[in-house]
């Protein structure tokens, strides 16, 4: 099986400081990988390099495109990469307002990606928006409301609907449950798990919350000072950590 994403030697520097370096992994279709580490460990830098928001100084991010097979997205033309960002890739921001258009209705937010790839039938676009609102458990009668009238959890679910409407194959998530109430987090986690399963999504999830990765991620990568210090099966890394830093990280979590 061809990996959906092959990451090779990714490095990003900010002057002399290392953002991330020597990152390599393969992600297969349907796999969910968590990236954990403390603030400044380079996990967000890495995610932004992989998603094409930052240009890495070295390395390749090879994506198995539908049309042409594996292509290095770092060297691909910007229009092609942005097109990927609207079709096969999705990016869920920590703060919903970074990923939503706050002055556009929920339906318009969901429909934007469809219109961006050429949908020109209002009735169809609206029907799909309503369908997706339902899938993320937002009442249909909110379709014309602006996200500013939504709760934090609803905004985040709307952001997910907006991203998944074009049925992407790879979803980048940056702290998707960060900043939400614990009870709202749980609902979102359950929703994400269901969508990942139903759509066969692959996902890269950056978080500092080990409980989130245990419930969402098949695999885990632990980062420290810009480097990957340990990776493997999520529960193996969490229950039998090998690296000193991972052991410290795991033992530092407060038990409830």
């Amino acid at each position: 099986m061809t990996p959906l994403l092959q990451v090779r030697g990714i490095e990003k520097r900010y002057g002399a400081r290392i953002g991330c370096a020597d990152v390599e992994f393969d992600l297969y279709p349907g796999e969910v990988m968590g990236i954990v580490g403390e603030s400044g460990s380079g996990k967000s830098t890495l995610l932004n390099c992989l998603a094409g928001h930052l240009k890495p100084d070295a390395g390749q991010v090879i994506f198995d495109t539908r049309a042409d097979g594996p292509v290095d997205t770092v060297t691909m033309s910007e229009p092609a990469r942005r097109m990927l960002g609207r079709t096969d890739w999705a990016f869920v921001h920590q703060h919903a307002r970074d990923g939503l258009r706050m002055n556009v209705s929920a339906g318009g937010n969901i429909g934007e990606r469809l219109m961006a790839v050429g949908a020109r039938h209002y009735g169809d676009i609206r029907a799909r928006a309503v369908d997706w609102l339902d899938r993320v458990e937002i009442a249909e009668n909110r379709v014309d409301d602006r996200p500013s009238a939504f709760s934090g959890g609803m905004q985040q679910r709307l952001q997910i609907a907006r991203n998944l409407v074009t049925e992407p194959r790879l979803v980048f998530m940056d702290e998707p449950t960060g900043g939400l109430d614990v009870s709202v987090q749980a609902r979102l986690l359950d929703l994400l798990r269901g969508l990942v399963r139903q759509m066969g999504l692959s996902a890269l999830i950056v978080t500092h919350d080990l409980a989130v990765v245990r419930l969402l991620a098949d695999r885990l990568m632990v980062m420290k000072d810009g480097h990957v210090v340990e990776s493997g099966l999520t529960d193996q890394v969490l229950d039998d950590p090998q690296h000193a830093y991972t052991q410290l990280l795991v033992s530092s979590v407060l038990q409830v």
Partner: protein
Amino acid sequence: MSISGEKKSAMIDLSGVAKSFVLNNQGGAVIPVMAGAGLRVAPGECVALTGASGAGKSTLMRMIYGNYRANAGRILVGGTDVARAEPRDIIALRREVLGYVSQFLRVVPRVPTLDVVAEPLLALGVDEEKARVRAAELLARLNIPERLWSLSPTTFSGGEQQRVNIARGFAHDYPALLLDEPTASLDPVNRAVVLELIEAAKARGAAIVGIFHDDAARARVCDREADVSAFTPQAAA
């Protein structure tokens, strides 16, 4: 008595398995916990791991599941070497072949019990309706009142959580099963149900490795015992 595991091809086949923990944050202390461990379990066979508390029963079971990393040796489950397999191969193995009933229920909060039990089937691509029917059957059989099915099990009593965990572990007919004290904290009625489930799993050909502190239960469902004390490293301080 059942057939011996030695003759048939084993579903679970361990040899030369070793494990030590390295505590990097405590001066790099190395704690060897197991060496030279071997075990063969044939389809339809149930083997009990025995040994004093701390002898490594749970550790061995977790290594078979891939939860702990083996430092040496081979852990074949249905032909996959868990000690060396890629994460995605272990995930596929857990989805299709290897079930595990642990002592702890770990679920997304607020997910209804029925969905928690149905999830292993959904992960296999079973139709939602069918998966829920199967989940309902198991919950009913394990005497979880129907009014609780729509609630999250996180608020349940210990015994109820244990039964939800068992229902989840038996939802799919795994060819290999790991059972960590499946009858602990159960009343006699439910204990009998669990033992029936184990016997049924054996009858359909599942290879089972279990930890049973309940002697009577062990005697009833297990064909053999494997004493993990034999795998205690000699060099242990």
